[in-house]
């Protein structure tokens, strides 16, 4: 049985420098944000905030300087991320490009694509969305049917992507399209493309989620022409590239930290000398939080050491989303709070949001069922 092994990680001292820098920055940048907006965490985007982060050099900060990066270490970036998440900073707009689109372009893109896309990302001027899911392809991603047909000088795309977070606010999509074969061919014949969201033939329709927010979209492609140089990586290599991209997507600290702002509010709402009931509830939560941080840090440390902790990252997602998903229930249980949306306080508004949003935590980035299947494969069961 291959072991799941979390090696303990000690952060190197230089990470404390950037930790303090980020804290100082956020103290100022978030001063005017109400707690109920911070409770939305990385689901919330703010272009002005993203540009301020970019000015500090914290988007694409590990990338080569020639592409606008800072060549900082992966652990410095990790600390920057966890500090952003700990405060609930509205990082949503640049998050995808920094986490997965940029690294994908760096790894599989041509030199021209790197030069075209990476510097604007680091300046906070190019936001990306993910074009993977389709109306008939959710967890079964390999069944995508949106098709890119080869034509002279490029490709013509027809089909529909769905659950595209932020498509209406993003500049580019990295789309997974079928370039050959049929949906039954599964992993074969898929390719990834860089799509300018302003291209003619693209129609973005909002999908309002149950919190009332507009985050999701349906994106229709009707005879959208993509030039040959919009293909990223090899023709037919899309699946391999997507698997690598999803590894970036699943292993980060956002898989356990989405509700830290709510936890902060919950502890502040209890007295400094809580009763036994509240103390036990808070204590169990904190034990999970502290341990999940060690696990997440361990994944970052192993990545930094050149290892491939894909399975460990998946375990953090499995336990992390279950943890953060449980926070609203704990808050309801310990405070008897009944949120009022119109005239309620910040705690109530925050709780109303996270109570609804939390159902999505075990759906986004791979459902709980998909995640458990990956762990089961790691255990040698499939």
């Amino acid at each position, binding site marked *: 049985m291959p072991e799941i092994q979390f090696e303990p990680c000690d952060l190197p001292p230089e990470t404390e420098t950037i930790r303090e820098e980020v804290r100082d920055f956020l103290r100022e940048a978030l001063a005017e944000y109400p707690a109920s907006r911070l409770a939305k965490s990385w689901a919330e985007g703010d272009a002005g905030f993203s540009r301020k982060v970019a000015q500090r050099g914290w988007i694409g900060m590990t990338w080569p300087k020639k592409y606008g990066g800072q060549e900082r270490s992966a652990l410095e970036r990790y600390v920057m991320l966890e500090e952003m998440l700990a405060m609930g900073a509205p990082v949503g707009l640049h998050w995808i490009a920094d986490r997965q689109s940029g690294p994908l372009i760096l790894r599989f893109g041509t030199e021209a694509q790197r030069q075209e896309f990476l510097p604007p990302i680091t300046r906070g001027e190019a936001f990306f969305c993910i074009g993977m899911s389709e109306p008939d392809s959710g967890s079964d991603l390999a069944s995508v049917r949106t098709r890119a047909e080869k034509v002279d000088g490029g490709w013509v795309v027809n089909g529909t992507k769905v659950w595209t977070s932020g498509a209406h606010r993003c500049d580019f999509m990295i789309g997974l399209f079928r370039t050959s074969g049929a949906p039954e061919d599964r992993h074969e014949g898929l390719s990834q493309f860089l799509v300018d969201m302003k291209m003619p033939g693209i129609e973005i329709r909002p999908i309002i989620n149950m919190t009332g927010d507009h985050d999701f979209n349906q994106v229709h492609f009707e005879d959208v022409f993509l030039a040959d140089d919009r293909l990223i990586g090899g023709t037919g290599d899309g699946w391999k590239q997507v698997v690598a991209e999803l590894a970036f997507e699943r292993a980060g600290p956002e898989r356990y930290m989405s509700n830290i702002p709510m*936890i902060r509010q919950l502890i502040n709402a209890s007295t400094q000398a809580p009763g036994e009931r509240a103390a036990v509830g808070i204590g169990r939560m*904190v034990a999970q939080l502290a*341990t999940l941080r*060690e696990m997440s840090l361990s994944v970052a440390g192993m990545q930094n050491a050149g290892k491939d902790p894909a399975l460990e990252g998946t375990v953090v997602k499995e336990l992390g989303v279950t943890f953060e998903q449980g926070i609203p229930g704990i808050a309801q249980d310990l405070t008897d709070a009944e949120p009022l949306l119109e005239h309620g306080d910040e705690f109530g508004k925050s709780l109303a949001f996270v109570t609804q949003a939390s159902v999505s935590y075990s759906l986004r980035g791979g459902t709980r069922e998909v995640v458990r299947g990956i762990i089961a494969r790691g255990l040698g069961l499939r």
Partner: protein
Amino acid sequence: MSELRDILEDTVTRLFGDLATRETLEAAENGDWPEALWTALTESGLTRPLVSESQGGAGAGWHDAFVIIKAAGRFAAPVPLPETILAGWLLDRSGMDIPDGPLTIACTDAAHTPTLSQRDGEWRISGDLPAVPWGADAGHVVSTAQHDGDSRLVLANTSDAACRPDRNTAREPRDRLSFASAPVTLLDRETAPKDGIALYGAMIRAAQMAGAVERTLAEAVQYANDRVQFGRPIAKFQAIQHQLATLAALSAQATLAAETAFRAADRRDPRFEIACAKVIAGEAAGAAAAIAHQVHGAIGFTYEHSLHFATRRLWSWRPEFGGESQWAEELGRTVAARGGDALWTDLTQRQSAGAAE
């Protein structure tokens, strides 16, 4: 991993693999002291890893001892090895000689705390120590005792006590030792932590539970791959896969929580990390035993199968040295007293404070 830790892990894994056999476990459950196993542990230096080298120990740290104690849990070793390691550490910290042979520790509570008295310049202990691990087999016990409202750590000779043997769910000895004005030696209150038994006892049980949880996972994965129903191994059923994925995640979490506590014990006051570890390992213990038994079906409920050696220990160790609620309550009070805004900064501060040393 450090070189010493690697060596210790190899040694202890090989030794338990050879000697903590089913026959040994069964014999121990019937009351036989596993002399061959204990002798081998002693000769390999595994009973005194934390004792200074001048005292015949290995001079290692808690993080090194973690691999030994976790392995004791994984192999269901029927000996008071973790207790001997902890007792030896407390005595060594006090600059005292370490008695030969197995040692044990007694976790007392308000209702069962013996008292100390002084007679002719000698300290004496009176009262009962309930449920002492291997109280009859260990030569000496380190316990807390009360004197004038003050709690002290003491070393007593178990042969000075009247012993009423008993067993926990795992059929490990949990004996009552009754003292009547028996001589004791006081440990140094400056160098041996006053809460040494309750706190570090919780830490060693967390590591043992992590080991036993890992054992339940290994057995359940093996069984699921071997057992065929409906024409295929039950491992191929998604319902089974998801149960085992959950168990694997909890196992890895319990191990890292326990290891984090042991690392902290080498660096600073580890109270926070030990509380976290006991909560996480205790929760994992309950879930792991339930999942592993469910996956095994009826065969896992037989004495003939080996699963129960791990699961009965999990149920026995979970409440010892404080259950999850007790430790969670302490954690909750500590965190609430500091307020929500301090939570994250305190958490990151603890980590970096450790790394700097």
